[in-house]
């Protein structure tokens, strides 16, 4: 059974078209102890601040579009349990459209530039493509990345160096492990700044889909030395 809980919440408000600088609005929200951050944000919108800009769609950790920072840590709002005191901010380092919503244009351009479709040497023939069952499972896991940008936001290498971020390497690893793909994904990963990763594993710890971009990076690095077993 759930029990009543009170949350003290600060929300970062910013409309680039009007405001010179961001400010924080404070709310005290009464909910239940099993509430997620999204439940609190929706409550603020529904009861207190009808002009709050925020984004969510699936509410169950699948669309990856509700990511925000809570007390400085990037999380999916729909999955993160509430803390008694929370400061909710938009995901960094992305441009803010308004309040908690970021502009993903550049993110999508980056995905598009990586050409993440299997580059086939022979045209696909209708009918099951030969694929080892375990490899199929591995590929599927790599492909279940939500593109939520939690790992990119948290990555200290992205912050200080020329590195696109862990999520993009995970996608490249998906293609690298796909037997039908002939692209040079390792070179792409290096060009994306993969070698700037210093292995802190924060991406793995924060991934809402329980994936490990850090492991994908380690495997790419191993391939650099020993070659790929594809």
């Amino acid at each position, binding site marked *: 059974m*759930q029990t009543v809980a009170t949350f003290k919440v600060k929300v970062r408000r910013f*409309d680039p078209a*009007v405001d010179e600088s961001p400010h924080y609005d404070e709310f005290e929200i009464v909910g239940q102890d*099993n*509430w997620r951050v*999204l*439940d609190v944000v929706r409550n603020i*919108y*529904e009861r207190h601040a*009808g*002009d709050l*800009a*925020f*984004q*969510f*769609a*699936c*509410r*169950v950790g*699948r*669309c*990856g*579009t509700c990511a925000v920072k809570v007390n400085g840590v990037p999380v999916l709002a729909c*999955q993160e349990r509430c803390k008694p005191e929370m400061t909710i901010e938009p995901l960094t380092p992305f441009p803010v*459209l*308004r*309040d908690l*919503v970021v502009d*993903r*244009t550049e993110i*999508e351009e980056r*995905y*598009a530039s990586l*050409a*993440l*479709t*299997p580059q086939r040497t022979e045209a*696909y023939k*209708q*009918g*099951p493509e*030969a*694929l*080892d*069952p375990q*490899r*199929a*499972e591995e*590929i*599927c*896991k790599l*492909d*279940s990345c*939500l*593109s939520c940008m939690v790992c990119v936001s948290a990555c200290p290498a992205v912050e200080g160096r020329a590195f696109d971020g862990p999520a993009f390497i995970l996608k490249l690893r*998906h293609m690298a492990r*796909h037997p*039908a793909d002939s692209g040079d994904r390792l070179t792409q990963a290096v060009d994306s700044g993969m070698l700037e990763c210093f292995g802190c594993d924060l991406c793995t710890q924060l991934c809402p*889909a*329980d994936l490990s971009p850090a492991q994908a990076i380690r495997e790419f690095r191993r391939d650099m030395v020993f070659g790929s077993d594809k």
Partner: protein
Amino acid sequence: MQEPPLYTEQVDVLIAGSGAAGMRAAIAAHDAGASVVVLAKGPRRANHTRMSGGRYNAVSGLNPGDSVDAFCRDTVEAGAGISNYKLARILAEEAMDRAYDLESYGLAWDRKEPLRYCTSMTGGGSFVRTLGSVDEGIGITEVMLHQLHKRAIRILDFHMLADVVQDDNGRVVGGLALDLSRGVWRYFSAGAVVIATGGTSQLYETSSGPAINTGDGIAIALRAGAELVDIEFMQFIPISFVSPPSARGYTLTEPAHYGKRHVDPTAEGGTLLNNRGERFILKHDPVRREGSTRDVLARAIMLEILEGRGTPEGGVLMVPDQDVFESFLKERPIYVKRLLENYGESQARFEAPIQVMPSALYTLGGVRINPECRCNVPGLIVGGEAAGGVHGANRLGGSSMPDIQVFGRRAGLAAAQEARGEKGVGARFEKKALARAGQLEQCLGRADGLRPVEVKQQIQKLMWDNVGLVRSEKQLRHTLEAFANLREHVLPHARVSSGARVLNREWMEVLELENLLDVGEAMATASLQRKETRGAHYRTDYTETSTEWAANLVVSRDGKKIKVQKVPLVTGGEAGVQLEPEKALASCKQ
């Protein structure tokens, strides 16, 4: 008053919706030589396909007993005899080719051997024919999205289709969209507009779909003069989470409750119990029991809850089969995690009963289309959940994924063909677009009236209580009166607290409210007309299925007035495959 900011451009095919139907239409239209723009109401990944378990019915040749005929028959039988036979046949014929397309895009279907896919059962099916992949709907949408990127197809995030624009003969010549991220209007003069905006599960208090599924495209088509078919049928998934609030209504994947029946049609599923420990499904379907179709299971659970035999939180108990835990953990680990987070360790391990409730899942009806996905409005093409006919009165589990691939592609092909002869005509009608934009701006910064979220909650409660799993004339009439009141007295004053143009959620919700009311009214009106019980439509005042109603209801609008017409079923030609009416009747009485 200042003129609304509006930017006009020309495109061959405008597609509303970034789920699998919209993306598949975009790929097909582009490959057929058309220029394409895809509108996504939120960020492009915020779509219903992504939430799906990704299970995919197809005649793969792996089960020698299965056939196109059998898949078609299962579809029509699950549809309680009133599916559009031609569309059901196309689904059965083309599903596997579209599954191969997905494989060519990079999707890895689960397999046991390198050349042999894993197949399983779903609700209502009589053959093992369902493919799947560990990455589910996420994997399907990802591989498709990269195909759009590869083709450099423009996808516009945060663009909501507000209405289509028609020439003086009623032909669709463009679409008016609100760019929510900039707060400006965009008018796309287009040779064809594809509606792939999905369903309308947001009409209900508890639903499994995303918050964006407010039936926009269905309502837009209805306003443009399109006919809707089978719109009285809303599919509810029987087994979904009860708590916490953010997860209420989210589907607990079918293998969790089907247990061994997931791979063996003769095996038992998990057991459903009410608060007295009674296995209540035996009253409703003593033959298939918990392996029954989704409509029967959902209604059985809802009746227990309504009649006071549910849990305090409004659910019933599902006792899963412990023997299947290991394979469930391997195949669907994410659901084990969700069970752990939402309920606790013993539930996650299948060692304790799991609280479940029904939830609005899939809009079975929709715009009435022909096999090319065209409707009665020229220039308007509809595919995916926004279209009706394939699934009739109920849908097989695992059939929405092939539906949106098969008919998404057909919609794209038809749109590209439609656009060939129509270049730049729509630009002449920019004034119409501007006038409509002006109307839709009037609510901005209006400080009186109810908040849109409050109006939405009223609509959702009315639909859940009266136009949901259990319906009657009294409930339906009450709902229609309440809707008329909302439309006349409440909606014109709905409050938009801020005049901000960028990402003004209340403004978007006011636009959505009109769509919700349009579709809700059509659903309630058709439900009132259908004086019988069939598939997902259960009337407490007409509990029997009647041969007289082995027909489709077609809803259209004449100004503000709703018209309902009873039309004969679309049947197939091939002898021996077509479902006999008596058999269809028998299947829905089970």
